[in-house]
C-alpha cells in the first residue's frame, strides 16, 4: 500500500513569493497534519485537518494556511515567503482525529527561500 505522498520534493522560491505544498494521506486516513522542521530542530506542528475541518493550529503566522479536500488530500499555502520559512515541510496522516492516533509521515518537501 502507498504511504503518505508529498509534492514537490524540493522547491526553491524567493522572498515575497507564494508556495503551495501538497499531501496525499494513506488510503482510508481522514486526518492530515502539517509540520515544519528547520535544520537541527524537531518538527513543529502547524495544522491538523480532519474531515475537511481545521482541528488544530500551531503558533504560526496567518501567512500559513491550509485546506483539506473531499478526497482527504491537503494543501499547505505560505504567502509572502521569508528566509526563515526555509525548512522541511512534513505531512502526516492518521486514521482519526482522536488522541490514540498513530501518525505516519511523508518524505517531506524541502523548501528553500532565497
Amino acid at each position, binding site marked *: 500500500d502507498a504511504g503518505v505522498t508529498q509534492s514537490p520534493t524540493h522547491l526553491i522560491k524567493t522572498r515575497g513569493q507564494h508556495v503551495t505544498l501538497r499531501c496525499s494521506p494513506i488510503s482510508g486516513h481522514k486526518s492530515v497534519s502539517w509540520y515544519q522542521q528547520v535544520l*537541527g530542530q*524537531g*518538527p513543529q506542528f502547524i495544522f491538523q485537518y480532519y474531515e475537511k475541518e481545521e482541528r*488544530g493550529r500551531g503558533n504560526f503566522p496567518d501567512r500559513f494556511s491550509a485546506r483539506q479536500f473531499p478526497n482527504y488530500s491537503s494543501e499547505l499555502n505560505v504567502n509572502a515567503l521569508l528566509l526563515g520559512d526555509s525548512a522541511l515541510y512534513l505531512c502526516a496522516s492518521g486514521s482519526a*482525529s482522536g*488522541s490514540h492516533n498513530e*501518525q505516519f*509521515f511523508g518524505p517531506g518537501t524541502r523548501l528553500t527561500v532565497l
Partner: protein
Amino acid sequence: SQQGEEDPQALSIQEGENATMNCSYKTSINNLQWYRQNSGRGLVHLILIRSNEREKHSGRLRVTLDTSKKSSSLLITASRAADTASYFCAPWAVEGAGSYQLTFGKGTKLSVIP
C-alpha cells in the same frame, strides 16, 4: 508544553551494542510516539505506547513509559549501521478543545560504527 526532550543529544556506539535513548515530558499525555529520521528525510513511525502501558516491544525495539516520572526510553538491541539516524519522541495530548498534535524535541542523533 508537552514537548518531548530527548537525552542524550548524541550517542555513538559500536555495531552489535545496545543503544538507549531517554525522553522526558512535562504534562499528562494520552500516548507517546517514537520516530526515526534518516538525514533530513521523512519520519518513520517506530512505536506508539499508550499512557496505560508500561512496556512495548517491536522487533529489536523496546519502549518503556513511566507516567509518574513523565519519562520514556527507547532501547535498540544489537544495533546495526543502518540504525544510524536521529530518534525523536513525541508526546500526544489534547491542547485545548479539539486540537491534537505531536510535540517534538531536538532528537537523539545515533551513530552506529561498523
